């Protein structure tokens, strides 16, 4: 049975009535005008005390009786044939309990897994690594995109290293460009960036009888479970994967990656639990990265300041991985009648790429927004005005105005440029994403006789505050203080959920939680109704009580209702149904940046960022602000500091540490002002959108535009290191 409901969605400035057809047992979508007890309030994260006191247990912190420590031997050659792996000397070291050959074929990047050991201490495991003798036959290799694309380059796999172009074509770009009154053309490059999750990849694996239990640092407990079940030929119910706390992932931790499989193999071989957490260097080499990109951009515009043609020819290298495209922003941010994008992946003998926070988008947004600035200058239009004229999203239109006012764009643009050595510049860039979530997740809500409520969902918290968001939604639905709710996640014994990626967690999980809580509430209403002399349909749950909607004085405390539960608990399930009619299918944001560049040293510093975003229905502005701050700061690092440096002569990454690979530190932090638009988006019963990625899309672009503005010349390569800034100044 289904119901047809009309809901009032969007923002007060631009509301829209949307009619949805939803199942009878689906709660009515949250909408404009709803009054909330906790949704939208600043709620500290529920696991904050555990994290602040060191009590939170991450995979790294798991210790089991008799546990061994695993370690991996990695190839020092970017390409080689492994002729022989001799484990005997390693096995002779007292305390070494298992040794395995992992690869006896071809090595395709420096850092590839070759062998592994397990020993009674981490130091003995390290000793054993040094005793494993591997005979390599080094082979010709290529680590740079140009060299890999050249005729006669060594093949990373077989045949050409340059993949087939991925082409998307809309309208007629060549004709529009030929007819356009204004044209610009430029090439932009971005580096390989590594994730640098503070908790490295790894696992603790334990075989017990016929069952495998794995604690691992993963963004997807169910994907790891399914991978391991196949690899070890076990039914899925004999594999349990647990991720209670996760020290960052940023897209690099999906599925049973090599170190997880190796930990499980060592556990099987040794008959003891094995902990294998990667050392920092391995993390840079082998666990993923954001591919580099070279983007040739052509724009055409007419005299009214409208884009008439966008053309992108791009190539990028994800090492031995693929997925290096960056066309997303070109197709989604600024509407244009003629858009053509062409992306090519180039294989190189370097570590595999993996998704990284808005895969493809920060590099795409950098090229897109730099080109927007170059075109605005050609049109002699204010750069913000040029974006306004090419925006069609009503939410972004408001965001641009709010941001410009908070940032002081008009005043700052009108201010005369300093003639001294320190110059200031400003930039603005737009973000888009499509974090509406997906069906699949299920949830269980349980009320106990003592009044506690527990919700269970097999999702994971990569640091965004998943537990907190889920607990807030349950607390709202049940009219309870959040302290009465415990959110249990990160275990394949809980109801199914999706991997935490693509900003999908909150929009995918919160509707399942809300539905489960609503179903639980209905059961509790049935218990409470006779005592209140009312029908269950006349009841509501507010302020810790179940009460009669039209006569709130007739109430019974939630805890007293729970005392009437016949057994110890009562539970109800909820499912995430497919997305239905929503306010918008996408999500908008914009960021403004002001920088200061020392023209004598070439050092750029970000002074201020204003970030304006929408998160759909705002659940918790406190934790949401944390995510935006994080997206902005990671973007500053991408704009100014971060790059994987490869030595093309030896094919090695020369900076696989946290001191030589420079991340944004506390002294690099500008003033960041975060503003949210609360957009009731519908589409699900919560209308929540994820913000982890949209927070990061525009950040580097805004900084890059500001640096170029400061020195009066475009810098078309990231990171904008002092040498590049000084070189650009020479040509300014």
């Amino acid at each position, binding site marked *: 049975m289904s119901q047809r409901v009309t809901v009032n969605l969007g923002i007060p400035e631009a509301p829209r009535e949307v009619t949805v057809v939803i199942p009878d047992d689906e709660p009515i979508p949250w909408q404009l005008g709803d009054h909330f007890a906790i949704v939208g309030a600043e709620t500290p*994260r529920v696991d904050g005390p555990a994290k602040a*006191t060191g009590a939170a247990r991450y995979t*790294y912190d798991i210790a089991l009786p008799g546990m061994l420590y695993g370690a991996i031997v990695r190839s020092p050659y970017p390409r080689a044939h492994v002729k022989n792996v001799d484990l005997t000397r390693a096995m002779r070291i007292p305390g070494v309990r298992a040794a395995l050959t992992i690869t006896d074929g071809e090595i395709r990047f420096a850092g590839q897994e070759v062998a592994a050991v397990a020993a009674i201490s981490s130091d003995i495991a390290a000793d054993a690594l040094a005793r494993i003798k591997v005979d390599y036959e080094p082979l010709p290799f290529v680590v740079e995109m140009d060299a890999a694309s050249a005729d006669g380059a060594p093949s990373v796999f077989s045949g050409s290293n340059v993949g087939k172009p991925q082409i998307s074509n809309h309208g007629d770009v060549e004709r529009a460009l030929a007819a356009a009154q204004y044209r610009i053309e430029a090439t932009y490059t971005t580096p390989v960036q590594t994730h640098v999750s*503070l908790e490295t990849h790894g696992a603790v694996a334990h075989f017990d009888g016929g069952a495998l239990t794995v604690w691992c640092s993963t963004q997807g407990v169910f994907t790891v479970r399914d991978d391991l079940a196949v690899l070890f030929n076990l039914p899925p119910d004999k594999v349990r994967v647990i991720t209670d706390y996760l020290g960052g992932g*940023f897209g690099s931790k999906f599925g049973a990656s090599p170190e997880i499989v190796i930990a499980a193999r060592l556990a099987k071989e040794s008959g003891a639990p094995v902990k294998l957490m990667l050392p*920092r260097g391995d993390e840079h080499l082998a666990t993923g990265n954001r591919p580099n990109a070279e983007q040739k951009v052509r724009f055409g515009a007419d005299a009214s300041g409208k884009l008439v043609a966008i053309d992108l020819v791009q190539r990028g290298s994800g090492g031995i991985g693929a997925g290096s495209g960056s066309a997303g922003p070109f197709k989604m941010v600024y509407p244009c009648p003629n858009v053509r994008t062409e992306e090519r992946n180039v294989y190189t003998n370097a570590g595999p790429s993996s998704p990284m926070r808005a895969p493809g988008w920060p590099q795409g947004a950098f090229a897109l927004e730099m080109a927007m600035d170059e075109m605005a200058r050609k049109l002699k239009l204010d750069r913000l005005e040029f974006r306004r004229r090419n925006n069609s999203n009503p939410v972004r239109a408001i965001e641009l105005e709010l941001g410009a006012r908070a940032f002081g764009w008009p005043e700052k643009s009108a201010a005369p440029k300093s003639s001294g050595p320190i110059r200031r510049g400003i930039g603005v860039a737009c973000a888009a994403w499509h974090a509406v979530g997906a069906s699949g997740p299920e949830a269980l809500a349980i009320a106990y006789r003592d009044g506690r409520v527990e919700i269970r969902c097999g999702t994971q918290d990569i640091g965004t505050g998943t537990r907190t968001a889920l607990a807030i939604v349950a607390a709202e639905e049940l009219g309870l203080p959040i302290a009465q709710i415990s959110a249990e996640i990160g275990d394949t014994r809980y109801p199914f959920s999706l991997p935490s990626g693509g900003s999908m967690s909150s929009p995918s999980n919160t509707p399942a939680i809300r539905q489960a809580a609503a179903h639980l509430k209905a059961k509790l209403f049935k218990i409470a109704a006779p005592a209140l002399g009312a029908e269950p349909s006349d009841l509501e749950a507010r302020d810790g009580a179940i009460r009669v909607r039209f006569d709130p004085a007739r109430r019974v405390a939630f805890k007293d209702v729970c005392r009437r539960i016949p057994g110890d608990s009562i539970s109800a399930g909820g499912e995430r149904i497919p997305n239905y009619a929503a306010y918008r299918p996408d999500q908008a944001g914009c960021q403004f940046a002001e920088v200061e560049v020392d023209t004598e040293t070439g050092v750029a510093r970000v002074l201020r960022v204003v970030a304006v975003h929408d998160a759909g229905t705002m659940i918790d502005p*406190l*934790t949401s602000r944390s995510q935006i701050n994080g997206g902005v700061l990671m973007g500053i690092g991408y704009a100014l500091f971060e790059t994987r440096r490869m030595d093309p002569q030896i094919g090695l990454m020369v900076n696989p540490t*946290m001191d030589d690979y420079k991340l944004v530190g*506390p002294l690099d932090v500008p003033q960041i002002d975060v503003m949210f638009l609360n957009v009731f988006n519908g589409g699900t019963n919560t209308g929540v959108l994820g913000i982890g990625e949209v927070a990061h899309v525009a950040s580097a672009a805004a900084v890059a535009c500001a640096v170029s503005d400061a020195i009066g010349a475009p810098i078309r390569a990231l990171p904008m290191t002092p040498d590049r800034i000084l070189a650009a100044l020479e040509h300014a």
Partner: protein
Amino acid sequence: MKSDKDKSPRKPPLSRRSFLKGAALTSAGAVAAVATLGHLNTADASAPALPDGVAERLGPGPAEIQLSINGHTRRLAVEPRVTLLRALREHLGMTGTKLVCDRGACGACTVHLDGRPVNSCMILAVDARGHRITTIEGLGNSDQMHPVQDAFVHADAMQCGFCTPGMVMSIAAALEANPSAELDTIRHSVAGNICRCGTYPHVFAAALKVARASGGAKGKT
């Protein structure tokens, strides 16, 4: 300790750690280092005589040592090459202190040694004898949080939380030294603490809140 930067590109044959290890075992330089830290172990009477200038010989096998941690004396057997960080985590099961870079570049393993913040990955456990060690577990717990921990929770000065114990320890030491510290002092006190989630603005806000509560700090977040 925090400024130590080992510029070796990767896995050098002689690592900083193995150098330290060698030094602690044999060289006169190590004795000077131990003496600087204010501790000299009395050699076992039954052990063979030591060369002049060498105070004790430890290793390569595990040595029985005592450490003063969070007000308690803890006994453990560690090889001399084991860092204080690994002794805490792997020998004593105190996992609140995090291992991230293992070379003094990120601050995640910050503990207090005689009240001063240090990177516990840069100190050998045997060299921590005779010092007062405070870890995140000693600062407070969920039932009774230290004011800095409480402020971290309320300002949401954490995301994934892996850098959080180190951040808390750095801030707590800074505010112990200067209870009314201002923003600039606070920023510098965590200059060696890296957070990949980029949660620094809320860390500053949390610290400022504690500093203001103590009656001193001026200025806005």
